[in-house]
């Protein structure tokens, strides 16, 4: 069953220099129990996408086109009051910075209990009991006694467990994890990712895993969406993407990885940089860095499905009308 469907989403920023699209024609879906990874460099629109889904866009940004469909209900135009009932209840979210993601003046337990009381209407005592159960589930040792501890008494990894506990507290259908392990030590990263996998299995949640780390994609995702400059340039199963990347950007990404666990931030083989928002080209946004740039690339390329039913699509003129992998190489 599909948990989340993004249909032709466009998010527009009102800048001093004029409007610009931070996301263009973004479409994908996440199934129950499935992990969809969103990869790309900083500035590719990953976080803007998460905020568009959550309805937490900054005031200068609006969804100008398309739909965010949760289950079977479009939520992109819901008023704030309705979104407050969606966030935390139907969508949980885990953030990058565990050190600052928790309010320093409230106990961790009360922060986990809060959505339980808000969304599930639990009494204070019930919420406390449930919160302790949750803390045990995310493997916080001696959970009952740590309910009344404050965030500063927890390590980074433990705080991220707290954030996860509160994200899954109301058993959401969708979990968005935005760079959940980037700020953590390598050993802790692995524990947190395994924990997310386990919880996802138990809850049958759909998970949107936002990351710039291809190793995490390879180890923990089912399918991948590759983003560049606000466009979904390619989407495929992890296997298909790693075996046969179709978009020049995705190819460069993978080619730049002598080892699979290397960060995209170290990416050196693609010359140039992600263009700044105000100077995004109208057509393909990879045009300035693409070795295969053609005249036609000045126009927005269509999304092309490679092979019937493979769910492997690429947004590139090279693959339009008889274009093949051979033509790219």
């Amino acid at each position: 069953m599909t948990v989340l469907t993004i249909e032709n989403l466009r998010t527009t920023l009102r800048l001093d220099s004029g409007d610009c699209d931070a996301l263009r024609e973004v479409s994908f879906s996440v199934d129950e129990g499935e992990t969809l990874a969103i990869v790309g460099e900083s500035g590719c629109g990953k976080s803007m996408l998460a905020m568009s889904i959550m309805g937490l866009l900054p005031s200068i940004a609006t969804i100008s086109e398309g739909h965010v469909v949760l289950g079977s209900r479009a939520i992109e135009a819901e008023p704030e009051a309705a979104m407050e009932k969606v966030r935390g209840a139907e969508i949980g979210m885990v953030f990058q910075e565990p050190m600052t993601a928790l309010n320093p003046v409230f106990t961790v337990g009360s922060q986990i209990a809060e959505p339980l009381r808000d969304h599930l209407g639990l009494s204070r005592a019930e919420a406390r009991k449930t919160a302790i159960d949750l803390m045990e589930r995310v493997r916080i040792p001696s959970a009952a006694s740590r309910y009344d501890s404050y965030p500063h008494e927890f390590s980074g990894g433990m705080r991220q467990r707290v954030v996860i506990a509160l994200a899954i507290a109301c058993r959401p259908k969708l979990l968005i994890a935005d760079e959940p392990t980037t700020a953590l030590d390598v050993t802790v990263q692995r524990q947190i990712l395994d924990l997310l996998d386990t919880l996802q299995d138990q809850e049958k949640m759909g998970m949107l895993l936002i990351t710039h780390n291809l190793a995490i994609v390879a180890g923990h995702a089912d399918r991948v969406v590759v983003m560049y400059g606000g466009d979904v340039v390619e989407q495929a199963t992890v296997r298909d993407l790693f075996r046969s990347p179709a978009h020049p950007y995705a190819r460069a990404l993978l080619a730049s990885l002598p080892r699979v666990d290397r960060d995209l931030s170290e990416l050196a083989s693609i010359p140039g940089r992600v263009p700044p928002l105000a100077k995004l080209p109208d057509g393909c946004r990879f045009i300035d860095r693409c070795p295969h740039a053609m005249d036609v690339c000045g126009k927005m390329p269509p999304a092309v499905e490679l092979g019937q039913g493979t769910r492997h699509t690429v947004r590139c003129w090279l693959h339009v009308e008889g274009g093949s992998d051979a033509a790219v190489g």
Partner: protein
Amino acid sequence: MLGYFGKRLLTLIPTLFAVLTLAFVLVRIVPGDPALIILGDQATPEAIARFHEATGLDQPIWRQFLAFLSQLAHGDLGVSMISNRPVLTSIIEVLPYTLELSFAGVLVGVVLGVPLGVIAARSNGGVADWAIRIVTLGGLSFPAFVSAVLMLLVFAVWLGWFPVISTAKPITDPIGRLNSLALPAINLGLVMMAYVARVTRGGMMNIMRSDYIRTARAKGVPARRIVWKHALRNVLLAVVTFTGLYFSVLIGNSVLTEIVFNRPGLGKLVIGALERRDYTLLQGLVVAYAILVVLVNALTDLCYGLVDPRVKTS
């Protein structure tokens, strides 16, 4: 918690000692012999010598200082040069009025200033923000005596809502006492409100951008509660710190307020001591002010410890 408070008090001892020394020195660098001022120019040398002996002024300065300290240690601030009353008695007599005025002023300032600051931050650049900006600019621009005179004129003289002269009312007449406290406290509070509103607005703007506010929004906390609970609790840390720093300004304003509203208090005592050149009383008042400021600083830390859980363990 108490241990922390005690430790904090211990660190204040050097400051206190320095202030005491200052009070001692200050009163002794005054040009002119107090004996001449008090006994008059015509005083006989014998009378002057007797006065010096009685007040200890014939002793070497370090002996005077030791005597001063040992007196202090016994809770004795000496005897007024003019009225022969113990200084401590005079101070204790009026201290409640100054304390009640100061704390009422802080209460008014915080209770009005914090919501204004929050509303201004919420409106950020909107009509409410500008209105509050103008109100706080007014608050910052009123010297306490100007606002006091104008308030007295409008609310006591013209409208007659409050007594023109807030004479000392006994504690057994709580309504009369509150009534005479109202205008002076509002006067102190309105000026403080302007500062508190600014501190709150600035803090709020920063905190609303923080990660934990985003977390709260992501878990579906209603906007109202995010502002008034999640963010405000953190802003209060800044407000507490500010209130501690502002207290010495508030004490200064209370002197002027006491004069305008003719209230008894430390401020009026200072002015009286200056007019009559009563240096022992002045010395005692300097000590009293210093202790008051030091205690308020400690109290601020205590409040800070109550609001911020990080203080207890670190």
